[in-house]
């Protein structure tokens, strides 16, 4: 598998603020690549650099072999980009939006008509061509925005938080569309903060406070707990319980998860006993302990906390 996107020690500073700090990663052809992180983690900045809209401060990024800083104009012919807000013209109809973007991409004649028909079909807007875009529900708008962004059949497509503010059913439909595109050989880079969406990506990169803190397939990432066991613990006063368990030898991590604690230990039997005893002794009974499979959220919390600890240390 060849890589269509390579980022090497990419840095972007806005004045004193570093938005992207020494980011290095690559994306393979036909992959659905998830770029995750909270707001302000540097996802959108990264995407905008990769689309040639922002100049990097240092480092290099190549998309389909094109240096994004040096040849942004050549790059634009080869990529598609769907911005955070579905950037359609609300006051134009579905078909007018498609014709407009087609015209802007330089499509004409039979090719334009063929792509229009294709776009209407994938967006599920047959028979709705003459509706004003304003009147469409969010899910339809989102699929139309995607169709507009890929009318010119780019090999690489960037989707910046494509599912923001869309209902769960539309979100699922949208992901089916993403999978279909990937199946036809298109490489997609998707930013999101939904973890269920991250699970659908072939590989993911997690950014936290401008840095890459986790990177790989979902399976690989879950390996951070390799050889260890995660227990879900219910007890009275979870915050006191967490403080107590963090100091307990043999407990690697204790994190609050809603009304419960997720505790990482080396061995299931020994861990259960230790946790139950410590909490009961401290008067935090009743205690219930259950072994669970770590979720992606556990992985991310682990990675982010490890990164914060590293920063505090340095």
């Amino acid at each position, binding site marked *: 598998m060849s890589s269509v996107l390579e980022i090497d020690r990419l840095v972007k500073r806005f004045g004193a603020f570093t938005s992207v700090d020494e980011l290095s990663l690559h994306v393979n052809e036909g992959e659905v690549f998830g770029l995750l992180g909270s707001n302000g983690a540097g996802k959108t900045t990264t995407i905008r650099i990769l689309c040639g809209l922002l100049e990097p401060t240092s480092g290099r990024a190549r998309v389909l072999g094109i240096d994004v800083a040096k040849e942004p104009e050549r790059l634009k012919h080869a990529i598609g980009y769907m911005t955070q807000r579905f950037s359609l013209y609300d006051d134009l109809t579905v078909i007018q939006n498609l014709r*407009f973007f087609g015209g802007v991409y330089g499509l004409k004649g039979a090719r334009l008509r063929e792509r229009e028909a294709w776009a209407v079909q994938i967006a599920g807007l047959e028979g709705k061509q003459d509706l004003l875009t304003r009147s469409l529900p969010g899910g339809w708008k989102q699929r139309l925005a995607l169709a507009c962004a890929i009318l010119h059949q780019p090999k690489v497509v960037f989707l910046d938080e494509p599912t923001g503010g869309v209902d769960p059913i539309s979100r699922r439909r949208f992901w089916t569309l993403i999978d279909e595109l990937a199946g036809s050989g298109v490489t997609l880079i998707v930013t999101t903060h939904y973890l269920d969406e991250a699970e659908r990506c072939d590989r993911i990169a997690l950014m936290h406070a401008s840095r890459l803190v986790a990177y790989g397939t979902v399976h690989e990432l879950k390996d951070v707990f390799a050889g260890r066991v995660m227990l879900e613990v219910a007890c009275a006063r979870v915050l006191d319980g967490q403080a107590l368990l963090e100091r307990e030898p043999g407990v690697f991590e204790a994190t609050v998860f809603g009304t419960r604690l997720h505790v990482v230990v080396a061995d299931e039997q020994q861990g259960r006993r230790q946790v139950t005893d410590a909490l009961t002794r401290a008067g935090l009974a009743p205690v219930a302990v259950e072994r669970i499979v770590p979720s992606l959220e556990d992985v991310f919390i682990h990675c982010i906390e490890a990164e914060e600890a590293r920063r505090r240390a340095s």
Partner: protein
Amino acid sequence: MSPRKVWAIAKKELKQASRDPLTLGMLLGLPTVMLLMYGYAINFDVRHVPLAVRDLDKSRESRELVAEFVNSTYFDVVSDVAAGDDLDRFTERRIAKVVLLLPEGFSRTLERGGSAGVQLILDGADANTATTVLGYASALVGAANVRRIQARAAGRLDLAPIDYQPRVFYNPELKTTQFLVPGLVGFILMLTAVLSTALSVVREKERGTLEQLRVTSLRPSELIVGKTLPYLAISLMATVLILVAARVLFGVAVRGSYLDLFVATVIYLIGALSFGLLVSSLSESQAMAFQVGMVTSMLPAIFLSGFIFPIRAMPQLVQALTYAVPARYFLVVSRGIILKGGALSEYTRDMGFLVLYASVVLTIAYARLTRREV
């Protein structure tokens, strides 16, 4: 630049404009409404001034002089003042703005060849009107004198009569609307052209569609031309509407060549539209673009262009400022073409400044809009 892509943008702009009756109404309707408002409101002409007359002489001569005032249509006799009436009463209660007093023995003095006195009492509260009225009255009395002298000369001394015939060129009746129409065209076009382009670009910024367009292979020049052309066309339509309205409502006809006027207007509009682009590059929201656009286009076009206040009467520093106001040059050219029937070739200096303005502003706007974020 690909004409197909420019056309795609222009077509989209027009479709959006046609769906937005408010904007279209503003661009096409507002100019005519403004012409109406300003045309009727800014009127320095004084007519039908209420006049009270106290004619104590009651002779043929005295009646002739009063008739002279009435026939001029500048004055309407509203009241006759009797001998004992308090004169202040008329001006204080604003029954009349002017009182004309003809003393007893007016005609007798004239018969004797002496100089008969006539008194004019004037309400000076509105200084502008008073000055104008005074001018009219003096001119009327002067004309009457001229006629008397002519009659006397013809009858007794056989001297050639003094043929006093003042003539005013270009705007023979010195009507202010005539003078104002070219200025209004300049001012209205400036306002609508700047606002329409500025708002159309900033709207795309606000909605995020500009970002979407910037990732397409669209060149900035294609985007700029595509966005400007429709508004150029709409502004030209507005110009036609203003000229038609000026013709119908105020009888202002274009004396020069329409082609000359068209060329001058297009160059002026390119400057104004470019300025709108510049405003859009400085504004993040439509509200801000609107404010910036209003202040920077409307105020100079009214106050610093010579539209209402003559530039020569301004302080030196302000005069220097007016060189940066394109409406100043357009005003000279459009007044020349519309009122005097002048040709464009007579205004090379002003046209040169308009071309210079358009190229400088367009260059800056282009640089600002195409600059990549760093």
